[in-house]
């Protein structure tokens, strides 16, 4: 059975999120990814397969090795993609509000 995987289902799993975090910084082989987890190698392979099926990860063959890298285009479809940008502005504006309230009370 090869169901087309849903992106949101894929990122709901904490191990898969951790894999995305790892691969976000640089491309990695399945072995290198698996070495970061205590989980059995086949389990990590299964996670990689799911992430690849829903196109969050892409595979690239270099010689005998398969490297995994993040598919930024697909990540954009994840609602959370924009969240850190929104959060950055929200944090700034919250701070602005706090600072200016002090100015207001000084007045």
């Amino acid at each position, binding site marked *: 059975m090869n169901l087309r995987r849903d992106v949101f289902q894929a990122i709901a799993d904490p191990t898969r999120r*951790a894999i995305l*975090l790892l691969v976000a910084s640089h491309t990695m082989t399945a072995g290198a990814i698996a070495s970061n987890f205590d989980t059995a190698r086949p389990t990590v392979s299964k996670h990689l397969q799911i992430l690849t099926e829903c196109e969050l990860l892409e595979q690239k063959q270099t010689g005998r090795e398969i490297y995994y890298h993040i598919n930024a285009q697909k990540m954009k479809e994840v609602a959370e993609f924009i969240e850190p*940008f*929104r959060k950055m502005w*929200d944090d*700034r504006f*919250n701070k602005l509000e706090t600072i200016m309230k002090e100015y207001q009370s000084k007045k």
Partner: protein
Amino acid sequence: MEQKTKINAEEGKQELVITREFDLPVELLFRAHAEPDIIAQWMSNPYATVKVLKFEGKKHGSYQLESTDAEGKVVFRSNGVIHEFIPNRKITRTFEMENAPYGVQLEVYEFEQLTDGTSNLNMHVIYESGAKRDQVLALPFAQGLNMAHNRIQEILNTLK
């Protein structure tokens, strides 16, 4: 907690809109965008200290900001020119990150009084292309992932 800051970034467009309602009179909201020492305060965060190197709050004026990390190392500088500077109403300016591939963005800030004590900011940002907009949007996401990754790495290192 309620999300006060809203972002509207439609797919395939080269612009975005940031809106936020403040529990502040419009005069104070504008002042926070017009006085260098106040700008530096709210733009800084635990990871980056923002210094205002130059700020001319007037038509044809320009500004330059500098961002340093916790160790005091300069992470990046940014600058822009001011096209419109109408107190308590509007600022139109450009913004550019120096030595970065994101191009120049046009920013239109509209300040609106709602009541005596509340105001609204509407920030319209236009990028050189949709691809550049998405790159800028992705920056905090990538930084967040990297920071999380660094933390994972730090923890893993202590376990070695």
